[in-house]
């Protein structure tokens, strides 16, 4: 997993690329999440568009980011979910948990709507 973090209107955008699959990715991602919380950022958009690859352990990484943010009254939403990842989300019904978007602007704006 590689990543790049940006901020837009108080929302953190984490762009992931490469492979997301458990192992050390898990601690790296947790580190990112806690860095954001220290900066009092609780609203996150994870851009999966650059991921070549994910497995259920990688999904677990996103889930733990999600639950952490929710515990802090924030959220973690997904951007640019490929068909392959979509089918993983659907079969596990995690599509009901994660909000997801095809457009960065919309994803960011969704946070100011509530």
């Amino acid at each position: 997993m590689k990543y790049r973090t940006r901020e837009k209107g108080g929302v953190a955008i984490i762009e992931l690329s490469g492979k997301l699959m458990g192992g050390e990715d898990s601690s790296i991602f947790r580190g990112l999440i806690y860095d954001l919380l220290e900066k009092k950022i609780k609203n996150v958009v994870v851009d999966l568009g650059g991921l070549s690859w994910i497995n259920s352990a990688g999904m677990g990484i996103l889930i733990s980011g999600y639950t952490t943010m929710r515990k802090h009254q924030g959220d973690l939403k997904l951007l640019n979910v490929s068909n392959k990842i979509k089918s993983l989300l659907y079969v596990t019904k995690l599509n009901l948990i994660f909000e997801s978007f095809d457009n960065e602007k919309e994803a960011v704006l969704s946070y100011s709507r509530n």
Partner: protein
Amino acid sequence: MPEYITIEFPSRHKYLNMIDIVCGEIAEDMGLKLEIANEIAISVIEACTNALEHGNKSSPEKNIRMVIKRDPDKISIEVYDWGKGFDYKEYLQHIPDPSDIQKVRGRGIFIMKEMMDDISFELVKDRGMKVTLEKNLIKS
């Protein structure tokens, strides 16, 4: 006559990408719909991840062996590790709810079961776990 493709690789996560690509390539060659191809690749990756992490305990000197069997109307994939196995009969009867977000892991077997037509486990003597995934084929 079925055709067999065998791949053996060290227990390192980085090789899973190669396995994914090989599955995609074979599915394309078999003329499978992209959706079916994805389900097969996702399931194989889950089986290999388990062989790697649970079976071989991530020891790179232990290999994972994958055998793809191509039949005209079926594809089956066997994944072998060198581990002690687990109580799969018990596990299969109580597969945890995959949408339970309190759990970070534990979705692999559920996913394989949903995406493939058949999944079976066997502890092979002097070897380790063997997981067999089968999918009946609908051509695109």
